[in-house]
């Protein structure tokens, strides 16, 4: 009963493969399609118009602004704002935008908010515009002193910090009272109850600190050694999983009792579960900032600068700081908040003192070949 036609099937397959191969050849010969090599031209400066008008599209992270600031800005400036919370990961956002930026387009967006290292990479690729500072008096006046000249942008010519924060440990006080350092996270007592961040530039340097290495002076070997240590903990089942903000779920359900996490998240988590607490690791924390940048091809850069200037007014920033609970980059916010909510103004996670962060490190430099190797090794651990 079984009648097969192997000849015909094989013939069809061969023809299909030939067609595919020749088409591939055509594409290859044609070349030039798709994404081209990067143009590493000098960043051009924003060209301002007289009055900011029209509309403005901003990409930011979720829950990173209070409800009132955008409408208040719209009312004050007459600019209509489309505020999109579509950034969930620095790398992912970059990878999604990169093909557009390569063509000199920004996907209709005029402002991105991304981590220091990510905007540095974009700047090196020629994807960002420099500010025209004449429209940014509030930014010039109120940017906090410690953030005025970071190594990647010494004059703050193309980055304006949105918020800063600290990466340390978040513990459940009841279930993991003794966890006080990054090294404690490797204690077998908490096997399968520990989450690590999937951010290579935060998790790996923290583990280096546990090993007594200063991340800012780390060699490639130091990076690899720390990654090895993380790999060991992952394979033994010590680390439950690698997460982003979703460690919040594991902490609230009790599936994790100690995680590597962000300071602002902890303040918000604490409101739901008083047992959760951010702790400064005895080795010190990682300090980071996320910056507003204006990409190439950004429509209406005049309005974008008006926005940057607006959020640097202390009164405006106080509303944002009160809501997001990260470290504000704007001077003059603390006295305003002290009047509204003295407890908040005294919170070390929101207004950390110099002595509180004395052992903390900035995001270490990681570039070129070394960056590729380290990221590859770390991703191999993530993908186990």
């Amino acid at each position, binding site marked *: 009963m*079984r009648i097969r036609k192997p000849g015909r099937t094989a013939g069809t397959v061969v023809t299909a493969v030939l067609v595919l191969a020749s088409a591939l050849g055509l594409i290859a010969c044609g070349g030039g*399609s798709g994404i081209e090599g990067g143009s590493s031209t000098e960043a051009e400066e924003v060209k301002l118009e007289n009055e900011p008008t029209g509309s403005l599209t901003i990409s930011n992270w979720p829950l990173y602004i209070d409800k009132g600031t955008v409408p208040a800005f719209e009312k004050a400036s007459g600019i209509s704002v489309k505020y999109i919370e579509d950034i969930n990961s620095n790398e992912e956002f970059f990878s999604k935008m990169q093909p557009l930026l390569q063509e000199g387009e920004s996907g209709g967006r005029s402002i991105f908010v991304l981590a220091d290292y990510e905007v540095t990479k974009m700047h090196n690729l020629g994807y960002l515009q420099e500010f025209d500072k004449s429209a940014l008096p509030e930014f010039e006046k109120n940017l906090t002193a410690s953030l005025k000249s970071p190594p990647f942008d010494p004059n703050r010519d193309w980055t304006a910090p949105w918020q800063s924060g600290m990466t340390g440990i978040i513990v459940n006080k009841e279930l993991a009272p003794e966890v006080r350092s990054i090294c404690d996270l490797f204690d077998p007592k908490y096997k399968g109850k520990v989450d690590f961040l999937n951010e290579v530039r935060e998790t790996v340097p923290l583990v280096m600190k546990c090993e007594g290495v200063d991340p800012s002076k780390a060699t490639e070997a130091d990076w690899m050694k720390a990654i090895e240590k993380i790999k060991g903990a992952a394979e033994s089942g010590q680390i439950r999983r*690698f997460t982003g903000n979703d460690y919040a779920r594991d902490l609230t359900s009790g599936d994790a009792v100690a995680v590597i996490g962000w300071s602002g998240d902890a303040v918000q988590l604490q409101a739901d579960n008083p047992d959760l607490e951010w702790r400064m690791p005895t080795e010190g924390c990682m300090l980071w900032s996320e910056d507003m940048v204006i990409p190439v091809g950004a429509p209406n850069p005049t309005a974008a600068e008006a926005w940057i200037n607006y959020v640097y007014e202390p009164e405006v920033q106080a509303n944002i700081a009160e809501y997001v609970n990260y470290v504000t980059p704007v001077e003059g916010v603390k006295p305003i908040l002290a009047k509204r909510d003295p407890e908040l103004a005294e919170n070390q996670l929101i207004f950390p003192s110099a002595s509180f962060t004395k052992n903390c490190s900035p995001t270490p430099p990681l570039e070129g070949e070394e960056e590729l190797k380290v990221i590859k090794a770390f991703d191999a651990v993530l993908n*186990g």
Partner: protein
Amino acid sequence: MRRRIVPYFLLGPGTIWLVLFFVLPLFYMAELSLWSGAVGSFEFSWHWANYSEALELYDSQFVRSFFYAGAATVLSLLLAYPLAYAIAFKAGRWRNVMLFAVIAPFFTTYLIRTIAWETILSDESPVTEVLKAIGLAPSGHVLATSGAVIAGLTYNYLPFMILPLYASLDRIDVRLIEAAKDLYSSATQSFLRVTLPLSAPGIVAGTLLTFIPAVGDYVNAQFLGGVGNRMIGNVIQSLYLSQSDYPSAAALSFVLMVLIMIVVVVYIRFAGSEALMGEEAR
């Protein structure tokens, strides 16, 4: 003349759709998989090493994906067959209600259903307590293990197994089963020699519909898996989105496609294509 054109005319929309959204992107992806360099300096260079590196670095994730998908497919079949059988032969007036119950989960998105499983399987949940008590959770937790990923895959693709099985069982001429009984076959015999062979098209279609998407799935491993449970889909996602290594991601996708194709071709050869096509292929 007119009659000859009509079939082509009817094929038109489907063909255009496939060419635009499947064949064309496939060519771009093939080209992409042969690039070399890094972001900003990518160039086309017949870089076949992308393929060998992809296989070398991620062989364990490939094996894992095929194992998880295979296990989920077998589990789905074991769960779905009795259910489909019951709906086709025993449900009576409850048939439509039961079919509706099978489809009902689709009214919620796939993502939400998977995240719900995160809660169902979390460490302190009653389900986990029971599993622990009967010794099915040796590591002390269920979530973030391979078992959780396979369970999630099984759950999410189960309807794709039930529906084709039901369709083929429902089509069986009951008189054939009655004839078997008249010829003194036992219930087991008539099932094994009449019902099961006649439902083969459903089994083949159901297993393919379950297995193929399950191999490439990454949502279940993302939410229900932990360290060491990531599937090839997760690797492709992280290569594309976190390492910006588009060429390797494209190469891996092609390798995955070819591997699935090989498995499917071997399977259909083994199971017989007429089982898939039913009566028409004979």
